């Protein structure tokens, strides 16, 4: 087994009496698409917030490429190459689609204490941003204000912004949440195209998408890992069926 890109050991986070994350140990291998599933309230979002650095754990540790990052904040983790998307679309609504991605490119281009040259005419920012928009299928929407994009387009825009930070690990928090069936189906090939280029940790409710995309799946219930393995293994696991898939089968 190769050394994991990201590993958690005994990660625990409580909110009062509620154990949102209980002793979670998991390993995300380089290059894989690792999916996290679990019923509502299983602690998926709390877990991803700890991986991104927005929440600090009460106990346990997080390792990225072999080094302990438990104490690092969000910008420091982004600098290491951990980037996330949000369950609720989070973009710069007043900016155009291109501005949104260009700002994400700028975040990776060293410090921004540059006060004189117009950023909107800087090919160092605009060209990579245009390329990323084209990759995600938004080439024709570059100059549209982000607020006027459709829901599906905004989710795609968000992924382009995350990619602009040149992440080694992509944390995708329910990228298909709130999407229509058609929009969700359009996004799947874009995610499939990312597979292999970057390690992805995908939290998703859409089971069809998860089983179509994931190399390995971890199942969370009541804050604890109840199973982890390949799609076939997860489908067959009786505890998973009881805790989660059973809901759909019934």
């Amino acid at each position: 087994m190769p050394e994991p890109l990201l590993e958690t050991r005994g990660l625990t986070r409580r909110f009062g009496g509620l154990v949102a994350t209980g002793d979670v140990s998991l390993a995300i291998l380089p290059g894989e698409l690792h999916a996290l599933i679990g019923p509502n309230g299983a602690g998926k979002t709390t877990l991803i917030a700890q991986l991104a650095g927005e929440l600090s754990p009460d106990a346990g540790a997080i390792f990225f490429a072999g080094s302990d990052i438990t104490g690092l904040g969000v910008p420091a983790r982004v600098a290491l190459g951990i980037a996330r998307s949000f369950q609720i679309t989070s973009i710069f609504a007043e900016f155009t689609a291109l501005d949104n991605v260009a700002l994400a490119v700028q975040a990776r281009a060293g410090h921004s204490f540059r006060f004189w040259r117009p950023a909107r005419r800087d090919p160092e920012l605009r060209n990579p941003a245009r390329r990323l928009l084209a990759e995600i299928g938004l080439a024709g929407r570059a100059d549209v204000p982000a607020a006027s994009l459709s829901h599906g387009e905004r989710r795609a825009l968000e992924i382009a912004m995350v990619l602009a930070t040149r992440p080694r690990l992509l944390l995708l928090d329910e990228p298909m949440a709130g999407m229509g069936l058609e929009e969700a189906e359009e996004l799947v090939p874009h995610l499939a195209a990312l597979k292999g280029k970057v390690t992805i940790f995908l939290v998703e409710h859409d089971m069809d998408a998860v089983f179509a995309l994931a190399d390995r799946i971890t199942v969370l219930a009541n804050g604890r890992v109840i199973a982890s393995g390949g799609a076939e293994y997860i489908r067959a696991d009786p505890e998973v069926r009881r805790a989660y898939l059973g809901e759909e089968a019934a």
Partner: protein
Amino acid sequence: MTRLTGPGAVAGAILVILALVPVPALALHQPFYLALVARIMIFAIAAMSLDLILGYGGLVSFGHAVYLGIGGYAVGILSFHGIDNGFVQFAVAIAASAMVALAIGAVSLRTSGVYFIMITLAFSQMVYFLAVSQNQYGGDDGLNIRRPSDFGNWLPLDRPLVLYYVTFALLAALLFLASRIVASRFGMVLQGARSNERRMAAIGFSVFRYRLAGFVVAGAMCGIAGALFANLTLFVSPSIMHWSRSGEIMVMVILGGMGTLYGPVLGAALYLVFESVLSRVTEHWQAVLGPLLVLIVLFARAGLFGTLAWLVSKARRRHA
């Protein structure tokens, strides 16, 4: 040459009008108007500098008049001790304002929302009372300044027309500088942080230091306005940084249009013309200003500047 857009045309018109004001004012022997418009331009610098952090940064700083005071007292105190050199006075005004902004910003930018408004207000009141307590510099009564900043014989600021054009040149230069800043990478970070702070962190920006830098730049620019104001009135007192003055500057920004830079120039003009004209008719002149402010906030979010720019664009389309 490309044709100016609506906002560009209005911005150009503002500068041309300000450049030409002295002609009729002197021809009609009305030096009062020269002083009034100089005052407008000084407050325009203050309001424009607030617009950098309020309009573009989304930071509702309720203590911006402090930097008017710091700039004014820099001139007043140095002059009191016999240092009249204008370059020294203005350099000290800028540096002192920047340092005070750095200190206030370093603390208050760790908060947000109402707490930020309150903490900037509290800091400005602290500086205000510090000035009141300085009896050797006049305390509450203020400090008379013997002579204006000395820039040598070729720039005698005691001549109203020279002071007018020095103020105009500084306003134009600072407007140009600010318009470069807001369009730069730094400006994009400021605006991104206003729009969505969480997203900024998620793509890797620590917005605090950029906001702090913006806060310092705005403070330093306002310090220049303070130094000019001391030269205009040859007097400086704590009332220049009373919290109500901070409110006036904020009203100028909102009247003129947040996030437009040139809008606050219009806002300063409207506010001070109202004050000087209507206050001769009634002491309750703010009862006229208040409803106007409400109307602008409700119906013209881009303020006076945005409305004018929109009208110009519309008229052009009709002629095209």
